[in-house]
């Protein structure tokens, strides 16, 4: 990780860098979503940064925050040997209108990673050449990694067989319900949202 890169970003972009931290030794910068592409381009092309590799791009859903979704990218420089994490926040309370620029033009990896992020969280990447679902099937409704998507919800393409069709009980639920084996610590985000209202 590299503190120098964060300093450089602060100098160059000033107010566009919302906050920075170095928790657990991982240097992080939270940036304005409108400057996402500009900052990414700088990080890739500036000789002092030289992040040739986009290690990872993903998102996190914070249902109690606005903007709700946080897009997280991890960059690595092979020549300099340093890493940095850049994040940006998008979307309203419902996660609608989450949109940022694509970085496919900078790193080839971004193509599939952004498709995955779109699939799982519903973040739209402006200018992506081929933004469609990658892990889920095209008929799938919703974005499974959002906290308010119920984990036990199923969307089968072919309807499940009913008891009548089978002529017997084919209840495959776990004997203690869908949450069997899950600890007390599990968070029920749908319930939390209902309680809050």
């Amino acid at each position, binding site marked *: 990780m590299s503190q120098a890169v964060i300093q450089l970003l602060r100098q160059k972009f000033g107010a566009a860098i919302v906050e920075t931290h170095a*928790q*657990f030794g*991982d240097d*992080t910068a939270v940036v304005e979503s409108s400057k996402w592409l500009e900052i990414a381009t700088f990080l890739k092309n500036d000789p002092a940064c030289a992040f*040739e*590799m*986009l*290690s*990872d791009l*993903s998102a*996190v*859903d914070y249902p109690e925050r606005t903007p709700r979704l946080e897009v*997280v990218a*991890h960059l690595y420089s*092979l020549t300099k*040997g340093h*890493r940095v*994490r850049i994040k940006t926040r998008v979307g309203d309370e419902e996660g609608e209108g989450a949109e940022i620029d694509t970085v496919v033009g900078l*790193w*080839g*990896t971004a*193509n*599939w*990673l952004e498709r*995955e992020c779109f699939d*799982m969280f519903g973040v739209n990447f402006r200018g992506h050449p081929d933004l469609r*679902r*990658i*892990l*889920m*099937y095209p008929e799938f409704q919703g974005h*499974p*990694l959002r*906290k308010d*998507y119920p*984990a036990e919800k199923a969307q089968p393409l072919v309807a499940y067989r009913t008891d009548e069709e089978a002529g017997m009980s084919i209840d495959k639920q776990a004997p203690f319900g869908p*949450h069997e*084996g*899950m*600890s*007390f*610590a*599990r*968070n029920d985000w749908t319930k939390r949202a209902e309680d809050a209202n």
Partner: protein
Amino acid sequence: MESLDLELDEGHLELPAEPMRLMMGPSHPAMHGTVRCVVDLSGETILNVDVQIGYLHRGFEKMCERGTWAQVFPYVDRLNYVSPMLNNVGYALAVEKMCGIVVPERCQWYRMILGELARMSDHLTCDGAMAMELGAFTPFLWMIKAREMIWDVMEEETGARLTHSFGRIGGMAKPPTKHFKDLALNTARSVVAIVDESEKMLLKNRIFVDRLENVGVISQADAISLGFTGPCLRATGVAYDIRKTQPYLKYDEIDFEVPVGTNGDTLDRFLVRLAEIRQSARIIEQACARMADEGAVSVDDPRVMLPEKTAVYGTIEATIQHFKLVMEGAKVPKGEVYSYTEAGNGELGFYLVSDGSGTPFRVRIRPPSFMNTGGLGHLLKGRMISDVVPIFGSLNMIGGECDH
């Protein structure tokens, strides 16, 4: 008898001018792993290809948000199911980085030896399966026999051949067995002997080499841009190995080399894997020499480690500790972390977000196979249909981690 081609000059043999669309997969006999390649063909040349993944998507990241931090271990076993130990260690290191825990020295060596054995089995599977898909069945059986030896060691140590769930936050589930070092050393030596033999079988086979050489060539710049890591990147000549560049565990105290290729073709990827098996054997030799025979393998930290079973049944404090750890889970400090290790296929990263409770807020895995498979389309374009099989085999796509 009349010549068969007499009728031919009467009409023109009309070949379709439009490209033909062919679906390879999701279940294709010559491709291991469920993946579908939709290829547009002109004759036998691939004009365009759309790689479709997701057939093994099981919602790994969603499942992790429902249990405790320790309940993630069985899930990471099933990511790369050919080398589950490397995933176990990778995830354990990520959580330990957040908790600020450093495991005892003996455990670090233990993790390294088990991890290198797992790496060997990963590479053996990839190279063996690749040979089999090109018609060389004998080396495949030899290599699978070698892999079985490694899994015997794993079974002896963990009780399970494949899904060990052996890692723990702050250590390992059990200390090494009495004969662990002998087992590991003997296995590593036998595996290298088998690799030598298989290599002779394959690399002196003209057909095998011809089908790999200069097939699926990728340049350094493209490989880096596509996020290739592990043997696929090293085959292009970039010596990026996290064990060397950002050493974790005790890799900085060990003498080993990072094999690199020159050409970035399928043969290089095959050879880099074979060379890495030999390097893994070197690491195991040195680690066995340095691992202590006595001492703790887990940290003595009641916040994360389960107490002794006898204490749980005998004292109220240990019973409460056990109950809290099982029902609520170990509390991990609030924050976010990205931890990365060198797995069989490359950089295996875990991006973890904790809200301070016993349940992970977000577990994001950076699966090396996902990026490698993402480059498949680039490698296939312009090649022949018969090249799909060796190129796909050399990327070692593991459905479990690629599809999350």
